């Protein structure tokens, strides 16, 4: 189990600087969050589905990685359908449940919106190598390198925590304190994991310091992180999709500003 597994692929998307992927995903999400109509979401989703063909993900990988989004979107839609703000014609009512014209429109809009924001985010991020993202954040965005590299190194420990957690569980059974209530047991175990992780963290910090981390020297970067044509193209695509969604939505009179 490793959070730092290295994604591999030859298509262009794997070589695009992760900072550009982050930027275009944020841009798209930011614009689509401004409205809750179904037209803008549908337009964005349509454009995205076309673009996914060029993403270089196999169909299997695409479905596997985006499965949570495919499950979450209709679930949220269904909840909205049953319990969403009642408006217009009532189709069906049962207790607290009111399926109305308003709630069904809202449900469709919600489902499409989650897909339109979720799918591209997942597609962009399954192709991101955390090391490359850290390089980009430090060299392109110019976040402090100590902060970025500390976070990156810490991420590697997460895999060890999972092993620790399993060992702690077995050890508790072996020590005769594994029978009690689950909540109490989990609380004790979580505390033990916290103690272990602090110890692991401080050992890692020592190892990093021993390699000159934090030395008062201007750091160099073994891996250059550049932001060029390919990156601008990706951000540009995100921008075009977002603008198209807004324009179509406003033109068809469906734009529904959330704060309005």
């Amino acid at each position, binding site marked *: 189990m490793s959070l730092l597994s*290295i994604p591999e692929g030859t298509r262009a998307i794997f070589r695009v600087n992760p900072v550009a992927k982050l930027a275009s995903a944020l841009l798209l999400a930011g614009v689509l969050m401004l409205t809750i109509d179904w037209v803008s979401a549908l337009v964005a989703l349509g454009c995205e589905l076309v673009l996914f063909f060029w993403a270089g993900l196999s169909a299997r990988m695409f479905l596997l990685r985006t499965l949570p989004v495919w499950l979450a979107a209709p679930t949220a839609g269904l909840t909205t359908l049953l319990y969403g703000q009642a408006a217009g014609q009532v189709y069906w009512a049962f207790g607290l449940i009111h399926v109305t014209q308003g709630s069904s429109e809202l449900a469709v809009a919600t489902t499409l919106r989650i897909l339109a924001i979720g799918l591209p985010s997942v597609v962009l991020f399954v192709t991101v190598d955390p090391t490359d993202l850290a390089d980009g954040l430090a060299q392109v965005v110019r976040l402090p390198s100590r902060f970025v590299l500390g976070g990156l190194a810490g991420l590697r420990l997460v895999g060890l925590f999972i092993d*620790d957690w399993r060992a702690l569980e077995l050890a508790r*059974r*072996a*020590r005769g304190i594994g029978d009690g209530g689950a909540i109490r047991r989990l609380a004790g175990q979580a505390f033990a994991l916290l103690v272990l992780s602090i110890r692991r963290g401080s050992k890692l910090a020592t190892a990093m310091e*021993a390699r000159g981390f934090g030395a008062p020297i201007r750091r*160099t970067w073994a891996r250059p992180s550049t932001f060029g044509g390919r990156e601008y193209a990706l951000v540009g695509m995100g921008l075009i999709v977002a603008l198209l969604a807004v324009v179509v939505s406003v033109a068809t009179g469906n734009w529904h500003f959330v704060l309005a």
Partner: protein
Amino acid sequence: MTAANSATPRSASVDARGWGWRHAGRTGWAVARLDLRIEPGERVLLLGASGAGKSTLLHALAGVLGGDDEGEQHGRLLVNGGEPAAARGQAGLLLQDPDSQVILARVGDDVAFGCENLGVPREEIWRRVHECLALVGLDVPLGHPTSALSGGQKQRLALAGVLAMRPGLLLLDEPTANLDPDGVIEVRDAVARVLEHSAATFIVIEHRVAIWQDLVNRVIVLDQTGGVLADGRPDDVLTSQGERLSMAGVWVPGRGHGMPVRRTIVRGGSDGILLRAESLVIARTKSVVVARDIDLTVGAGTALAVTGPNGSGKSTLALTLGGLLKPSGGQLEASAGFAAGAAAAPIGWTSRQLLTRVGTVFQDPEHQFVAGTVRAELAVGPRALGRSGPAVDARVDTLLQRLRLDHLAEANPFTLSGGEKRRLSVGTVLATQPRLLVLDEPTFGQDFRTWREVVALLLELIDDGTGVLAVSHDSDFVAAVADREYRLLPPVATSQPVVQR
């Protein structure tokens, strides 16, 4: 190999002048009144009882001890005449735990990390990365994931990362203590190759003298009460101080006498059988089968050693036999006498029922500590059994004394030394007098003194009728304790039958 020729760093000297260090929050000094000089290019084996401050000295030389909030300093400690912390990268430190030294996800990036921090230009970094990986014999692609490396490979990776900084002072803090025998040889050979190509001053800490004896030209023994106990050529120091060093926990070659001995030999017969496994299939998690077709028995008053290469499933087998992991196939049953009214399969026992039947000692003692003091830690088991206060106290007092932990009764288990933690982890399971003891690498990383104590304690228990099952890489331990050996074959293949020793 033109390793360190091109830009060989100036090998560094070390000077300690009345140097001492006390960690914040401690009353005793970790190192006190240390006076010593190490000339550039000298190769030193640093010895001393555990707690003599060897690691503290190495951390200080590497400049990673921390500032005033981490502790208090006396006297002066100089590398090449300057403060160690002011010249990062001048000293390279390799630590004991392979897992805590891997910093990045890819092999090449990890080696480059130190150079980046020191501001080495990019082209020069990659030149050094290739060179240092070749030097330590780590023949994997630069993009190879570091998580897929073995312990010995991780240590060689860390060594490459240290060498890439071109240190004038190479510091190794028990670099092989957590490795299996193959890993020890890998790392030792890599260091030998490095020393052939480098003029760097070299200091290594290690309990097992034999590994490094031929690579050093000076042995320094730190005194537990401060200062230097002995200093000189390896042969001279080991001859004159051998007895004393051996008592202090150092593995001095040729000093195996005074070893504990078994009183009784195996009692045969099937009446003593505690556990029987037939065609057992073991799995770490439900879907990951690690070994199959395991047939063995574990008997009262005997010791079975489980051996085999890394990844062959030794720990998984121990945890399965100890009733902690569910077998994924085959049979594992306790004899009627051993089950004593509980279910036949150990995995069906409750946590409380396990206490008097199987005691499992984990490889990492820290995983099994659950209390705030040593005394409370020992009382956890007896209390879970619902024993009365006075009975618990009596049992705990006996154990504290038997394990030489009485002076630490109120200490936090996590603050103990490695040897003390090991003794405590054995003590916690002995507290409820289980009839079967399952131990995972009980002598891993231990000094000679703790090793002797653990062996003596186990032999005594076996003589008194306790069954012992121990996973071990340590051939000395297997020879001293085990009646039988069950050898697991490398992953994929099936296992061999039990060998009578």
